[in-house]
């Protein structure tokens, strides 16, 4: 244990990968440019040198084939971690993920499990325009058979991978591109995370804000700003989007009476829509105000900076949604 160990989100992801590769020799990493290039965002830098080309495999540009091969390999008894550069490119492998990974256990009457981890970058904020900026984790969270997780802190970036690998079913890990430079303490290195539980990141008694990804950080910043005005916001990090831990959110709403959901994806059919529905179903009488939602504007993410900024969740937008549910 090293209490002063500060690392970036990117380094934490790498530590998680290193621990996974070192801990089980059935585990291997494959994806585009994960080896020699060091990962398109530098996450796997140095792992090829450390573990060799059998454990860190570069693939051609063939998302459907190498994700499908990951599914087959997982069925066959090894433990692949498949990296897809970004969620936009995962759409080329959507068939394999939804029609195979998510269904094989059920269609085979429980015989064929797919213990596969798929990691991908999600999110906007870097002026990469519409084909590199989307946040589609809510789509995947729609699908029974998949587990969908989103590390939003340094500790979760390091530890979630280990928990995902321990899961007998396919787990999709969404790493937010705007968080790679985030720093935080990692005193004990990667520690497994309870993938069934959301967690309160900041306690408060006035309003609950539930979020993940970059929107979590916008929410924490908004909470800080609102504290100066005497408003105490409780911020819940959802962590797992499927199965969604509504119990933690309901327990928080029971204390605060108010809920705002912030998410990086679009509002229609999003995580906020699902959470608001569940709170209406199971916590209606705890609510003192209608549920508020903050989400990306319903537009493919534009290149121009002022337009991209306006499309995304920001501390200002979260703070005004909080004020709205308080008034």
């Amino acid at each position, binding site marked *: 244990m090293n209490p002063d160990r500060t690392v970036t989100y990117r380094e934490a992801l790498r530590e998680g990968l290193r621990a996974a590769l070192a801990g089980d020799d059935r585990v291997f990493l494959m994806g585009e440019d994960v080896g020699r290039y060091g990962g398109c965002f530098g996450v796997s830098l140095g792992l090829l040198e450390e573990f060799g080309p059998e454990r860190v495999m570069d693939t051609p*540009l063939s998302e459907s084939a190498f994700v499908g091969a990951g599914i087959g390999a997982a069925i066959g008894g090894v433990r692949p971690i498949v990296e897809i550069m970004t969620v936009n490119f995962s759409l080329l492998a959507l068939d394999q993920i939804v029609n195979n990974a998510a269904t094989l256990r059920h269609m085979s009457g429980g015989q064929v499990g797919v213990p596969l981890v798929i990691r991908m970058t999600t999110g906007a904020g870097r002026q990469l325009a519409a*084909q590199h900026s989307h946040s589609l984790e809510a789509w995947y969270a729609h699908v029974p058979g998949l587990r969908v997780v989103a590390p939003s802190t340094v500790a979760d970036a390091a530890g979630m991978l280990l928990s995902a690998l321990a899961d007998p079913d396919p787990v999709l890990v969404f790493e937010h591109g705007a968080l790679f430079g985030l720093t935080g303490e990692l005193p004990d290195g990667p520690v497994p995370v309870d993938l069934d539980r959301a967690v309160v990141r900041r306690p408060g008694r006035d309003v609950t804000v539930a979020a993940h990804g970059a929107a979590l950080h916008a929410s924490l910043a908004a909470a800080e700003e609102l504290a100066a005005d005497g408003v105490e916001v409780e911020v819940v990090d959802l962590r797992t989007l499927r199965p969604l831990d509504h119990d933690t959110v309901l327990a928080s709403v029971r204390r605060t009476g108010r809920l705002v959901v912030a998410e990086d994806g679009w509002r229609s059919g999003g995580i906020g829509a699902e959470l608001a529905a569940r709170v209406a179903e199971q916590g209606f009488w705890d609510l003192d105000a209608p549920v508020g939602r903050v989400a990306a504007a319903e537009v493919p993410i534009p290149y121009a900076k002022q*337009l991209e900024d306006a499309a995304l969740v920001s501390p200002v937008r979260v703070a005004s949604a909080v004020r709205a549910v308080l008034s």
Partner: protein
Amino acid sequence: MGADAPVDPALGLRLLRAMLRVRRFEERCAELYSSTAIRGFVHLYVGEEAVAVGVLDALGPDDAVVATYRDHGHALARGLSMRSVMAEMYGKVEGCSGGRGGSMHLFDVGHGFYGGNAIVGGGLPLAVGLALAQRRTGSGGITVCFFGEGAVAEGEFHESMNLAALWDLPVLFCCENNLYAMGTALERSESNVDLAVKAASYGMPAWAVDGMDAPAVHHATSRAVAAVRSGDGPVFLELHTYRFRAHSMYDPERYRDHEEVDRWRDRDPIETLAATLRGLGALDDAGWDALEAEVAAEVDDAVAHAEAGTVEPVEDLTRHVYAERNGTAL
């Protein structure tokens, strides 16, 4: 046409000028990226100019073009104004895509330019469809589709090749083989590195061309275009080339060595063609200086225009998601 065939001086000078415009434009973009006037991902075409310039000079106004995220050269060679492309790099309203697309998504339907596509392989099916429309409408045009050799590993490449050949569609597939897909060398991504052979297996004429030699590219394209226009179906050209710079602005280039880059730099398509034209007496120092001055002035003008361009008000954010009816968004 190889190095032995004579170069028509007028064509040579035209190609030289077109390549120099792309080169100087992109060099300025790299500077502007460092000063943060341009953001996002920017993929430079430096070293590969002979491909877009040689191919697009051989097309007609009714033809359609589909490109990738590495699209500045194609846009300029297709006739988009340097002003409109630079304004797009700045995200301004005057940009060819209204500032919504940026470097990777240059569009200009008026020039038959159907965009830079940033999903590897994503443009190929579109090109097949544009060609299907051209045939159904009897427009007489053909579609030229540019993509990198990395795309050859994607399913969309194979599905598109098959469809185009099966339906005898007027598509010219131009594979820009610069040997690397980001950090992945061709031999580490293809079981058979002879891409023309792969294409030929779909039943279309396919051959390799020296993509560092602009007149040779032009000559090969003219032949290919004539075949495609005649209605015999698609043609595939594999253009051997090399990118001199990083994959994008972020790339530590750990995957190739300097000597290899230097060897290819010795074959710089602009210097090679300039030397040929000098040998023919079609270019001298004064001619070169005049060309440089003309291009520099155009780049300066494009930058000034982009800087003075309009920042779109955020109230317009959700425009262009659906067709506008009576001037308002759906």
